[in-house]
């Protein structure tokens, strides 16, 4: 019974069936399956399969995001139980669109994909000032700070954020990553960022790489 339902939950996530994943997670907990087991044997394998489908070109962003929604609906059920145990997230990431810019689609996609990969993510929204990044970092202690900008005119604001942290002597407490249409690896190097992602999927890979190092 427990075995079947773990597979059912895994399949429901892969098949984007967001309406039933919450119920399946509750059912599994009620039948005595441990939250850790649900995470390791249903949720994470599901995300792996979704990742493969995406990489192979069978799934597109709307599909992945729907899978993430299905994942979230079950994850929020098991999270309180996980926290009772020795659960630690894979890492903490703050995201925000820099000051002067209100574009956020790319950032939102990255947010969803990071969540779907088991990271704790905090979204600061758009038009985020350098000082606000600093204050939130002090309060929330992320591993990584991600900044996006879609306008070439707001690219300098990314450098300002890093400079602000440098002035406070906190630059090396965090990894800074950047993304957005006009941004490139060369620009990342110029402003002293730790990494750059061309798109949301590369952003996820980048976060994984930085946290592994």
């Amino acid at each position: 019974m427990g075995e079947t339902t773990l597979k059912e939950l895994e399949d429901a996530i892969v098949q984007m069936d967001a309406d039933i994943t919450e119920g399946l997670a509750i059912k599994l907990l009620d039948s005595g399956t441990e939250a850790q087991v649900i995470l390791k044997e249903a949720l994470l394998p599901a995300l792996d399969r979704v990742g493969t489908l995406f990489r192979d070109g069978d799934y597109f962003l709307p599909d992945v995001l729907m899978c993430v929604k299905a994942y979230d609906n079950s994850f929020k059920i098991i999270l309180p139980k996980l926290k009772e145990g020795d659960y630690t997230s894979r890492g903490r990431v703050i995201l925000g669109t820099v000051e002067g810019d209100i574009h956020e689609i790319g950032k939102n996609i990255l947010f969803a994909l990071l969540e779907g990969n088991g990271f704790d993510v905090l979204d600061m929204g758009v038009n985020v000032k350098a000082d606000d990044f600093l204050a939130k970092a002090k309060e929330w202690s992320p591993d990584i700070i991600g900044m996006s900008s879609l306008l070439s005119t707001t690219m300098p604001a990314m450098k300002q954020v890093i400079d602000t942290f440098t002035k406070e002597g906190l630059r090396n407490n965090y990894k800074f990553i950047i993304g957005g249409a006009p941004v490139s690896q060369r620009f990342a190097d110029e402003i002293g960022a730790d990494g750059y992602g061309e798109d949301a999927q590369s952003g996820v890979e980048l976060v994984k790489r930085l946290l592994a190092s």
Partner: protein
Amino acid sequence: MKPGRLEFLSESEIKKIDALSLDILENTGIKVELKKLRGILRDIGCTVDETKKIVKFRPDIVQAFVKKAPREYILCGADPSKRWPVNPDTRVFGGLGTAVNMYDLYSGEYRQATLQDVVNHIILFDGLEHIVSSQMDIWPGDIPMQTIHVEAMRAWARHSTKSFGMGAYGVMPTQDMMEMTSLIMGGRENFKKQHPFIAIVSIQSPLSSVQIQLEGLMVLAEWGQPALMSPEAMAGTTAPVTIAGLLAQHNAEILAYIVMAQAVNPGTPVMYGTVSTIAEMRRGTVALGAIEMGLISAASAQMAHYYGVPCRAAAGGTEAKTLDMQCGIERERSMMLAALGGANYITSVGTIESTTAGAHELAVIDNEIIGQIERALRGIEVGDITMAAEVIKAVGPDGNYLMQDHTQKNFRREHYIPKLADRDKRDVWERGGSREMINNAREEAKKIIATHKERQLDPKLLMEIDAYVDSVKARSLEDFYAAEWES
């Protein structure tokens, strides 16, 4: 939703062209290079000049016999569960030929076409979702001329679930094709009830005929198989230089051929075909990549539909010698114009160099072009779901639609998703090896050929097919041509 349909002729212009064609048929006539057929035409009331072989058609005869052609029939595959209705409102795409040279898919070398190319071509078409029919598009140079058609049909039986076809050239080859199709489709009666095979009947413009094509036409009509009446008139050499003049002349030719098919066997499925285009005025050669070819195809579709028959148009032709920009531009635009004009069977896939050379990767590219054209022609669906009223309100200012169910449920249908065209950002593209579309097409072609599985045919049928091919191999080239009827 308004159908995406392009019209170059007004109703009154269609009638003017029709009137001139009827005038040509009545007063100038068509040269019919086959005695047997002239006899049949005399029997239905045409005036025949036996010494000049000229047949003149009264307008009432033309009108009465064109009406006998069916508006619709079902094309099927070697696997008869694959079916495509053909009528003035539907559209299928097929191959175009004949390529005698090929760019080698693996080495890139330009060389003579081989039987293996024929086999790979048929395999490829079976795997490309937007392509319905192979037209014996490749003409191999490594096997005897008199065996090409039966070798191609054997490859079709073994490797394709889709439709097949080729030129109707002469009594013996056309009968071979009918007999072999009959074998493959499970017997003569079974075959006559369906249409897996379509044949192109070429018309000799201006206003004439080639004996072997007429022989082929008669054999096809007797077997009740679709005949595609296809002039390749060239404005400036074999037709008036003006497009309206070309249309009137080739319309007369096509109508005469439709009458012939109906006179032999009333109800024979036909298509109003066109391979007509302009001539290259510096050399008098054909210009299949010309923009005017698209105009002629679209206008021909209008004429075909005026008579209530489906239209075959050749498209995708190019005079380019390599897989370059000219090749891409010319193929896409004539396919688009033919499709927008309402042509129902568009033979377009996989060739360059005025269809005398080909490349397998081009077929894969054409498949993607067709997918995009099909998407364009599907048009814009306006309804409760597609208007997205609730979603627009729910997302509101500054939101985004990416995470909406509506997006996930509808994007595959609303957007054409290319497999070959690159849409990545530069860094991603560079990391992937800076590949051009043609590289992706090459890889896809290799993959389809490598993973193809031969059809599981009854061993007895395979032996019968092999025996038929062997009997044809035993013929001499003289035998092959000796079978013709009196001209």
